[in-house]
């Protein structure tokens, strides 16, 4: 009978399809995620990032100033506290540089060594053996498109002393390094582009 003979294969097909679908779903759940090409974004903007226990923050600003002028400011960093609010002073001794950072618990000296120096292009510093924090900072300079000046990309990687709890505690106290870093770069931009740092204060600080 045509009906019956058709009925069975139909049922078998439906069954097979549903099992197949089940298998496909199972396979999708078990298999590693589909391979995606790496995208063009900096690693620190990834939704999930792994830097081997390091915390990484970074930021790029475009400044209408030549690369060399910006390079010189970072190469001789004693003037950086003028615009970096988190920095109370910088001491330079050859290639050893001590950055005194303002932390919620008072001044916090970070001893580093200049580990990369490409004039007009890049500078990097790394904490020395025995420093009180493991940290690396890098500034990279690129010509911006058109006549927009220089793209300044700065990033800092450090191993959080107090782990994620310390990181959140710092954020709540307004010292989130990502925000502080971004703000400091904007102040650098103001200083280089306008010669001053904008304030709405109506009077000089006493």
């Amino acid at each position, binding site marked *: 009978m045509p009906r019956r003979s058709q009925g069975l294969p139909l049922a078998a097909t439906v069954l097979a399809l549903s099992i197949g679908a089940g298998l496909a779903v199972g396979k999708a759940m078990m298999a590693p995620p589909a391979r995606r090409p790496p995208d063009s974004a900096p690693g620190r903007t990834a939704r999930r990032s792994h830097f081997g226990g390091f915390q990484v923050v970074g930021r790029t600003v*475009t400044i*209408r100033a030549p690369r060399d002028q910006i390079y010189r400011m970072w190469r001789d960093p004693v003037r950086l506290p003028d615009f970096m609010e988190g920095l109370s002073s910088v001491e330079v001794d050859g290639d050893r540089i001590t950055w005194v950072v303002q932390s919620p618990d008072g001044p916090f000296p970070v001893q580093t060594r200049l580990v990369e120096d490409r004039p007009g292009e890049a500078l990097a510093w790394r904490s020395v053996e025995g420093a009180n924090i493991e940290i690396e900072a890098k500034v990279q300079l690129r010509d911006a498109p058109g006549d*927009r*000046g220089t793209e300044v990309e700065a990033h800092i990687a450090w191993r959080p002393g107090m782990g994620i709890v310390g990181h959140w505690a710092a954020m709540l106290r307004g010292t989130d390094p990502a*925000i502080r870093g971004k*703000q400091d770069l*904007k*102040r650098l*931009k*103001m200083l280089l*582009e*306008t*010669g*001053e*740092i*904008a*304030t*709405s*204060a*109506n*009077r*000089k600080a006493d």
Partner: protein
Amino acid sequence: MRALTWHGKHDVRVDTVPDPQIVNPRDAIIEVTATAICGSDLHLYDGVIPGLQPGDILGHEFMGRVVETGSKSTLKKGDRVVVPFTISCGACFFCQQQQFSACDNSNPVEKQEASELLYGHAMSGLFGYSHLTGGYPGGQAEYVRVPFSDVGPIVIPDGVSDEQVLFLSDILPTGWMAAENADISDGDTVAVWGCGPVGLFAIQSALLMGAHQVIAIDHYPRRLELARKLGAKIIDYTQTHVLEALMEMTGGIGPDAVIDAVGMESHGFSPDRMMDAVKQKVGIGADNAHALRMALTAVRKGGRVSIPGVYGGMADKFPLGALMQKGLQVRTGQTHVQRYTRQLLHRILEGEIDTTFLISHRLSLEDAPTGYRNFHGKQNEWTKVVLTPGAAAGASTGN
């Protein structure tokens, strides 16, 4: 010094506060000779703009004499200047593009965070406005610290009165830019919602730019009358179906360009406006966009939409379909004041533009709270209030 300070919704007072000082090298200190209350000050007065703090000095339309200069100011003591309400450095990428209200360097860094969260980017500093735009002390005061005084202020020659040039600080360039954004050419009809100061200057500017006809929409008889005197046709929305009338007055085509000079506190009795008003009242950040919605529906296919009216947050039930399907172009923004001051001063000196018709009331700075109350509550009669510091209280003259 004496200054008008904000203390909360519908609570402004004239207080004695410390005089400003030169803080940065490009600063100047201006002794204010005339200052005005702006429609956008009423948004602050109504408490619908976020980021104001008790004690903030309001005012962003002001002019005066230079009394002190920083080492890098190009102004001279005694210069008479009008100061743009936008604070701009003149050097950054945006200032170089003449997008002065997008200046990167005038909004203090620590004040930029909230704007970045809300808008994605921070705009330039503004005098006497929200801390989102820097929280700079404003011009309804005896003295003002003017940053980047080598870029913003325009020196005024002798022979013109303060009242002839005061509105170069904001509303005249704002009306002019609104008309420029409407991209007017021969034969165009331009419909303008709102006959407040900016709407009226937009009408004046659109006619100067060669619009065939300008149709002004409002409900205050005196303001509509001012629009008519400038040469506009008028529609009173309490008497007339606006959309129908606009079609009939444009040969069934619709206006080629529309200008929303109302912004976030529109009046009227439509359901969308009532909903917006409720949301604004309970403080969920909704802008009342009734005028803009109507303008988007009215404008012809492929037409232009210019929005000088101030908005600060989100709008619901926005006719996005009309925008896309009709292929509209939208241009808006805080005014790039410095782009226009020189040419508009020239037009004033040549007698092409008169702005003094707008002023309905002149008060002492001491009476500024009265000015706010009436500019807010009696919009028909109080079209523009000019304040003079130093004058005795009660020394007001009205028309």
